[in-house]
């Protein structure tokens, strides 16, 4: 077993587990030696990864049984390298495929829009384990998985997760709330699947893209940006305060106008007062009736700077923005191109 990598303090790693019976003193010595070593940086930081060549640190192989902590704070034990994986969210599916384990999927969600072609081809014939609503527990159990990747924040309900755990299945719940955490989750899954090398490669690539975007928009003025998630029955939904989407907009060089943190709704009056300079239409990706013209025609919207200056732009890549997987950086890039079209060519 190679030297313990100390980057992921939050996760209980197998090397440390084996050292638990060892007297405290030895443990302390190892910790001291560790701290003097690679410098304890957090995972997936763009600048860190960019400055460290991907092959400089030998990537460890996962040792099973593995106990890790998922995004919901649950400790999950994986007995052996998973060969049969059930994914309960499209983002999880893409992560698994990006790590080269696509052929190990045995159950996928029904919603299969917006996958890259190779993923789409693989999942097309797999059993459906979740549609809109509760998971199909029988289908999941029938698929006999040894790893279930769920979506956090009640996208997969707590009842379902508890029930699956009670049935003896290891359920790892993923809910990244920032770009860093997306990379962290990819590395977590990589560790779970003993695909840590692939994970490092994927996250390195993501970090490059992020760095490129940040470099491109650095120094540019940040326009007040309103991202329209949807307008339903008069209620306007956008990026919530301190949300993932808001942080993406910031990284893409915009100044996000945000709505309520819990409901993500924003009152029209507040939007008018915030006066966006740029309106990004995320819902235009799904609804052809939403265009710059129809938006301009809405009551009360005509005076907004963005509308006056004609900076109302549909974003077909909305699906990438809302899918916290490896391709989120493509969404980020698309968003940045919309915000700063002149910074890219």
């Amino acid at each position, binding site marked *: 077993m190679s030297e313990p990598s100390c980057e992921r303090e939050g996760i209980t790693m197998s090397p440390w587990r084996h050292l638990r019976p060892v007297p405290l003193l030895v443990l302390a010595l190892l910790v001291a030696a560790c701290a003097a070593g690679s410098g304890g940086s957090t995972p997936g930081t763009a600048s860190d990864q960019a400055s460290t060549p991907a092959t400089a640190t030998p990537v460890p192989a996962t040792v099973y049984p593995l106990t890790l902590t998922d995004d919901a704070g649950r400790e999950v034990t994986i007995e052996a390298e998973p060969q049969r994986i059930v994914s309960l969210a499209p983002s999880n599916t893409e992560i698994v495929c990006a790590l080269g384990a696509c052929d190990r999927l045995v159950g996928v969600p029904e919603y299969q829009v917006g996958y890259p072609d190779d993923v789409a081809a693989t999942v097309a014939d797999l059993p459906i384990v979740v549609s*809109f609503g509760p998971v199909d527990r*029988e289908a999941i*159990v*029938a*698929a006999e998985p040894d790893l279930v990747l769920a979506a956090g924040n*009640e996208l997969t309900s707590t009842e379902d997760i508890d*029930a699956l755990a009670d*049935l003896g299945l290891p359920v790892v719940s993923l809910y990244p709330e920032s770009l860093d955490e997306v990379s962290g989750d990819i590395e977590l899954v990589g560790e779970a699947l003993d695909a840590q090398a692939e994970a490092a490669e994927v996250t390195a690539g993501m970090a490059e893209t992020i760095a490129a975007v940040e470099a491109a928009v650095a120094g540019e003025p940040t326009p007040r940006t309103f991202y329209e998630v949807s307008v339903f029955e008069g209620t306007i939904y956008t990026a919530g305060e301190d949300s993932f989407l808001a942080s993406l907009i910031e990284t893409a060089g915009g100044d996000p106008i945000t709505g309520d943190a819990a409901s993500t709704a924003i009152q029209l009056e507040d939007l008018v007062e915030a006066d966006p300079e740029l309106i990004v239409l995320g819902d235009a990706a799904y609804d052809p009736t939403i265009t710059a013209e129809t938006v301009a025609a809405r009551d009360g919207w005509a005076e907004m700077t963005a509308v006056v200056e004609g900076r109302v732009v549909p974003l077909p890549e909305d699906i990438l923005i809302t899918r916290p997987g490896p391709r989120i950086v493509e969404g980020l890039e698309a968003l940045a191109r919309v915000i700063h079209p002149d910074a890219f060519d």
Partner: protein
Amino acid sequence: MRAATAQEATRPLPIGLTLTRTALVLGGGALLLGILVVTAVALGSTQIAFGDTAAIMGRRLLGLPFAETWAPSAETIVMQIRLPRVLTAMIVGGGLAMAGTVFQALLRNPLADPYVIGTAAGASFGAALGIAAPLMLPMLAIGAGSAFLGLGIVQVLAFTGGLVTVLVVFAIARGGGRVQMITLLLTGYAVSAVLAAGVALLMFISGRALGAIFSWLMGSLADAEWTDLAFAAPLMLFSFMAMLTRWRVLNLMLLGDSQASSLGVNVEREKLRLTVLATLATSAAVAISGTIGFVGLVVPHLLRLVIGPDHRLLLPASMLGGAALLVLADLVARMVPGGGIPVGVVTALIGAPFFLWLLRRSRVLRAEAAS
């Protein structure tokens, strides 16, 4: 006064339960229930051979030495997913129907259901509180993960909410040491309205817990587990046993407070006792499956139209009928492709039209008889 004819004097009285009638109703009901239970365990979104299902149950429940010819996942599905769900449907359905029967007798109103004096509103409020509060006030979250008697905080609050609300309604409605049933109804309605407003408020400020609260209100058997059964089944069985022996009192209550009293019923005490027993069953049901509607209203009413109002037969028949209806409704609910639909939708779709048809038919029959 004319003397009784010889024929009249010797003819047996048409009282009591004949063997054929009892066998037909209860035996038939039990048989129907048995068939439905077996069918419900055998069917699901995953195909499992019927023989395997039977063998699994035989081996795990009866210890019969069947060779294991099935995949372990099949055994998990049958024993851990389907069987607890079907058994929960049985006792929840039976409990709600029984409670509905009792309230229809107590309130002398065939449109009464087990929730009418506040159980549903109280339980919903408790559940909504249990779901939303830990999210709004993180310091309360310590309770969320813990279990009491194998139940989560939501179920405990739901159960307590239902029971306490009914007792409060009863206390408010009691005037001069007596409870008028109409007062009880109106008080229940008023208290329910207040609690419903509370639930609405909790839903409004609950943020991401809204979906969870809403799906609880719809009623669902999807999260039925053996631990839930371990809590609810003893309560239900106790309630059933206690209620089945009180058939006489229920019959007498149909004569009115005054006459029942002169026939030896301690009317006020029995009102409280029957209300508590029925509410125990209802609260236990609601705690583990949310507010499933229609079973408690339609089953006793339908059965009364068919087998008559004598509670000696009506009570056990309602229990069987309610159990059968909910097992069937749940089967239909989970077979709908796309993850299934809430069982409350199915009970309404089954119950309402059938009820309308039977009501119309009985009115026609009565009109014919009167002409």
